[in-house]
């Protein structure tokens, strides 16, 4: 069996054209993805976008409708979960309630008949600082402790690929930060490939080497966190990963290295290299912290874009910075983050202001900003489970 020994190192994961259809619902549509060995890869997306389904496909708990899954270059599409060198930290932990903590952790080792299972399990428990609770039952542990046991139970097997399904979801903020650091250092220590699923963009950005933003069963964009943030490709990514100001208008003029777009009477310029579309309607975006507020009309130069005048309709102070919302006629509202350099706000509510930004900070999107969010109901697997249970109950009552 391929899993008879510990993985020496992480393995590549490759998904090729994977589809997953449930009766009446397509959860994953043509997903192709390569995760290099030893990397910390985050799959980021709103609830119900298909993250858990993707992990279950990789773990073998769900069968792909179409497509191939390769781990370390070997096609595992048709193998059973226990034949794959993969372990999962489940969203609900799924600790065995009838076994002690140490038996939970040793379970995988015993199934593979690995020598010294108990000693290795104790080692893994020490790694998550829970060895002193080895004889307890899962129900006697707090949520955070259960989560660490679930992690130890997976890691002790040294899988070539570790799948983590929102493992920090149930923890409070402080414990969460602590666990994020711990996870990251464990990943670096053991050198395995981590595929981490989350809907928390901050978590994805701080932990992962590569982030894939997923929406409606497809990957919208994939790359290093900085790249995704600085140069989002779609309106969904621009808004899901941090905030963005988006303006749509027709292309007025193009040069060898820039594109000008007519937005509410102003010409907004974006570097050609940072724009995905070069003709027709183009959506230009800029991050709120890249904007400057002006109380007098700034001079328009070749290096800056200016919009305005508009009125400040809301100021919220948050210590280091303040957030201003500026309503510009014909454009809607623009969000501006500004450092609090002086005393008091830079512009009071109701003040007439202009906003400007450097041309090089703008980005042009592939699609257009749509008013409605592109993801709809919050139908994750938990909801499905509840619905299934209800159906079952009513069936029972009928019977």
């Amino acid at each position, binding site marked *: 069996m391929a899993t008879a020994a510990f993985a020496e190192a992480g393995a590549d994961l490759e998904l090729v054209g994977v589809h997953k259809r449930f009766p009446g619902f397509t959860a994953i549509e043509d997903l192709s993805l390569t995760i290099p060995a030893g990397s910390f890869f985050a799959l980021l997306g709103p609830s119900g976008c298909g993250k858990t389904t993707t992990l279950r496909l990789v773990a073998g708990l769900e069968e792909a409708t179409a497509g191939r899954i390769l781990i370390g270059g070997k096609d595992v599409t048709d193998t059973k979960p*226990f034949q794959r060198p993969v372990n999962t930290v489940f969203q*609900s932990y799924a*600790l065995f*309630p009838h076994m002690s903590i140490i038996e939970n952790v040793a379970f995988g080792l015993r199934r593979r008949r690995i020598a010294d299972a108990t000693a290795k399990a104790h080692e893994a428990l020490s790694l998550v600082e829970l060895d002193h609770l080895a004889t307890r039952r899962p129900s006697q542990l707090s949520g955070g402790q259960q989560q660490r046991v679930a992690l130890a139970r997976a890691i002790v097997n040294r899988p070539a690929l570790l799948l983590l399904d929102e493992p920090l979801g149930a923890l409070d903020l402080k414990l969460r930060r602590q666990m994020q650091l711990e996870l990251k250092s464990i990943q670096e220590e053991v050198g395995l490939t981590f595929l981490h699923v989350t809907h928390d963009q901050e978590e994805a950005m701080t932990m992962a080497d590569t982030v894939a933003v997923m929406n409606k069963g497809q990957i919208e964009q994939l790359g290093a966190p900085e790249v995704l943030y600085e140069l989002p490709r779609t309106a969904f990514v621009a808004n899901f990963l941090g905030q963005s100001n988006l303006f749509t208008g027709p292309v007025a003029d193009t040069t060898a290295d820039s594109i000008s777009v007519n937005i509410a009477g102003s010409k907004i310029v974006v570097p050609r290299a940072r724009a995905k579309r070069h003709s027709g309607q183009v959506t230009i975006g800029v991050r709120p912290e890249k904007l400057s507020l002006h109380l007098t009309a700034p001079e328009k130069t070749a290096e800056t874009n200016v919009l305005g005048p508009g009125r400040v309709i809301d100021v919220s102070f948050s210590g280091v910075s303040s957030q201003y919302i500026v309503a510009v006629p014909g454009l809607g509202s623009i969000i501006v983050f500004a450092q609090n350099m002086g005393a008091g706000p830079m512009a009071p509510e109701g003040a007439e202001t202009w906003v400007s930004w450097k041309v090089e900070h703008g980005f042009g999107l592939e699609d257009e900003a749509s008013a409605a969010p592109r993801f709809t109901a919050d139908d994750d697997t938990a909801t499905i489970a509840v619905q299934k249970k209800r159906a079952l109950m009513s069936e029972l009552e009928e*019977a």
Partner: protein
Amino acid sequence: MTVQEGLVIASAADAPHPPRARRAQFSLGSWLLPVYTALALIFLLIPIAYTFVFSFNNSLKSNISWRGFTLDNWTNVCNAQDVCAAFGNSILIGVVATVVATALGTAIAIALVRYRFRFRSAISLLLFLPMATPEVVLGAGLASEFLGAGVQKGIGTIIVAHIMFCISFVVVTVKARVSSLDPALEEAGRDLYGSPAQVFWRITFPLLLPGIIAAALLSFALSFDDFIITSFNSGSATTFPKFVYISAARGIPAEANVIASAVFLLAIVLVIGQQVTAASRRKRLTRVG
């Protein structure tokens, strides 16, 4: 009169009332409920007490009038004609029917909850029928089946009949347990390199075990107890309930009282023992946690 005075008077007038009313209710409840409970318990326990007391009766042929205390019935239970044989048959039938019905019923319960297949709801419904049908109908129907098929009635046919009605109870009991089982646990087992058989025996089965044990105890009790279906399908074979019924006409031997009392005492000991271990386990858990 000032407002304060008014309040004082009002509260002085109100104050004694609610406690008095409450005391009256309490005193009514405090004697009515215990007396009522005691009467109900006495009513329930009289037949058992009677059976127990008369197991020590120095009876001759019939065991109806008190003729003095003796331990002979307890020390020589098997003296009475056929009592022990009937009891042995009941135990054998109960054990075999319980084992078979529990094994089959558990498998059916898992299948009904976990898999979607044709006629699933119909099967669920059909499994309820033996519980809802009058026993006389079931017993008579089965008896004519055996007659039609030319099967010789005896212990074998009693076992088949008991398995039939026990399965329904097993399925209902175990099904509840299966539907409350988190499928993620079995998935975790498969993910942690457990083969399907290992996942079943190390995760599914232990987690279902309380339900399976409850179902087995219920099956045994139902089988041991059954008279109507048994008497239709027993031929010349005798079970303990059938023996008691037949001998009732000419006087039940005191040895039957001994066996009935022993079974009752055993059941009580089992229940108390279970309660005590459960309580001590709870205490241990709370101490550790």
